[in-house]
């Protein structure tokens, strides 16, 4: 069989799946976003075209801008803390001469194993004002007198939701940084030790530059995913209190699936989110693809 035919048949199942599940729906969502689509229209199958009206309504909605702002704040906090923590913890578990480091290393993938929705619920329990586990720990340790309202206080709610998200996604970043650390040649460290450099110097001038690429990759990937955060919001705050934790994905979900079920407008808002993430994906492509020689 000719090479090109072979390649085609081998890829057929993949192409079908991707087409059915990704390509077509993305196109269809774009189609929906420029039509007026409510429940009755969806059932009848006739959608009147209404141009940019859905997008206009979304961009005019103050709640959308609040959601966008919250999403950006959330993303910034989670991604930056993830990177800092990942580097620090990767260095920590790299210390194989310390036995507690080996314990940590064994446990490091545990957060990755927890389903996001279950994680959200567990943290909802931790954060509960009256019954919460976190407050109980702090009481028992004598650190506080009165219960703290972690997720119910509009000033702290958004920050409170970042913690379970970082907890869950940190292992991924740690693994990557740790793998990258293994790739740094020992000679560099030994040379600088001979030159009399201290630990901080070694870190800042050798380790960190060598980690630049992996940090960039983590930055881009995690930013794209953090933009679409949903499960934690659903489980812990449902957007509240007030609008403190309304994020972009939650906005699309509510517009589409809560009455009066404006599928067109929901598709439009989801599309705006997808386009923003798409821009990040393009950055990723140019950055990684340049270096990838596959």
């Amino acid at each position, binding site marked *: *069989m000719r*090479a090109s035919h*072979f*390649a085609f048949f081998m*890829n057929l*199942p*993949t*192409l079908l799946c*991707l087409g*059915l*599940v*990704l390509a*077509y*729906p*993305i*196109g*269809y*969502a774009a189609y*929906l976003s420029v039509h007026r689509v409510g429940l009755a229209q969806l059932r009848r199958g006739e959608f009147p075209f209404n141009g940019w009206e859905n997008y206009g309504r979304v961009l005019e909605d103050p709640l959308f801008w609040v959601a966008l702002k919250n999403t950006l704040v959330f993303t910034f906090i989670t991604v930056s803390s993830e990177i800092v923590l990942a580097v620090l913890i990767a260095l920590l578990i790299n210390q194989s001469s*310390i036995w*507690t480091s080996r314990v940590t290393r*064994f446990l490091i*993938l*545990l957060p*990755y*194993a*927890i*389903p*996001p*929705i*279950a994680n959200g*619920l*567990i943290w909802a*329990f*931790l954060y509960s004002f009256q*019954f919460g*586990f976190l407050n*109980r*720990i702090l*009481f*028992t340790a004598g650190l506080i007198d009165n219960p703290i309202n972690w997720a119910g206080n509009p000033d702290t709610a958004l920050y409170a939701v970042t913690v379970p998200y970082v*907890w869950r996604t940190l292992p991924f970043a740690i*693994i*990557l940084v740790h*793998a990258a650390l293994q790739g740094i040649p020992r000679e560099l460290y030994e040379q600088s030790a001979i030159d009399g450099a201290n630990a901080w110097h070694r870190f800042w001038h050798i380790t960190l530059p060598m980690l630049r690429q992996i940090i960039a990759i983590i930055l881009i*990937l995690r930013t794209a995913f953090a*933009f*679409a955060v949903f*499960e934690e919001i*659903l489980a812990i705050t449902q957007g509240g209190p007030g609008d403190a934790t309304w994020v972009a994905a939650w906005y699309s979900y509510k517009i*589409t699936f809560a009455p009066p079920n404006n599928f067109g407008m929901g598709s439009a808002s*989801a*599309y705006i989110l*997808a386009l923003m*993430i798409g821009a990040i994906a393009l950055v*990723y*492509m140019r950055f990684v*693809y340049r270096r*990838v020689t*596959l």
Partner: protein
Amino acid sequence: MRTKSPTTRLLLHVANLAVIFFILLPVAAVFIGSIQSEKALQADTRRLLPLEFTLDNFTVILSKGEQKGRIFEQVTYLPDNIKSFYAAFSNSAIVAVSVTFLTLLFGSLSAYTIARQRFRWTLFLLQANIVARFVPVIVLMIPLYVVMRSLGQLNSLGGVIIAETGFLLPYAILILAPYFDTIPTELEEAARIDGCTRLGAFVSIVLPLATPALAACGVIIFIISWHELLIPLILNARPDFMTLPVVIASLVGDVHVFFNLMMAICLLALAPTVILVALLQKYIVEGLAAGAVKG
């Protein structure tokens, strides 16, 4: 490495303990939450460990609501979905296994062509997969629903399996393609000279050599599928087709919420993947690293 001073060692131990505490915090919470009754939770809101332990939460779930135990005896409004735990568990298992199998199958076929045959369009496929990874599920939900409906695959496991396979294929391809690329071509070339077909060479030579990558990829796909919420949530409305995350999510909005019951079911839901991760850590680490570094 130079030896460290005792202070440094101590600091590192402390740092490790802090990290271990952070990692174990939710696990401790879910465990302690699931072995007490709601009443015990409310009776003393400052105690760390409950006054009385009970396994009733688990009994209720595992006996499909038949045996209510002491704490739920009078309760009339036990969430109905609790009773379908076994069904949800098996649904999750069926979906995850099928998705893993299909993704590995289709993914390895594609990854092979991408690695070995450098046509313009296979490279384009690779790029498309890289970008496809970024698509948020939220934008796909309505169209996906309509597509599945016209195929008659709503309220069936088949629809969820197809959807998740499509969604996860990019991940698989991005882990497998670079790995295939590292396998030297001489062995296949030798086999082809001996009269083996391309496909034959692929199956008998490349696949066995790629077992570590397949294992790594498989475990990761399984875990992601087990955890998936939005796709089964939208596609399956009936309790007999719900997966575990959907059942858990349905408890969130439940007006009659029982924290302890929720913790119990969360514990049961996370057990399989935790065990999997504990046993197959090595593979997961390799898979994650491979999938990201090379894009």
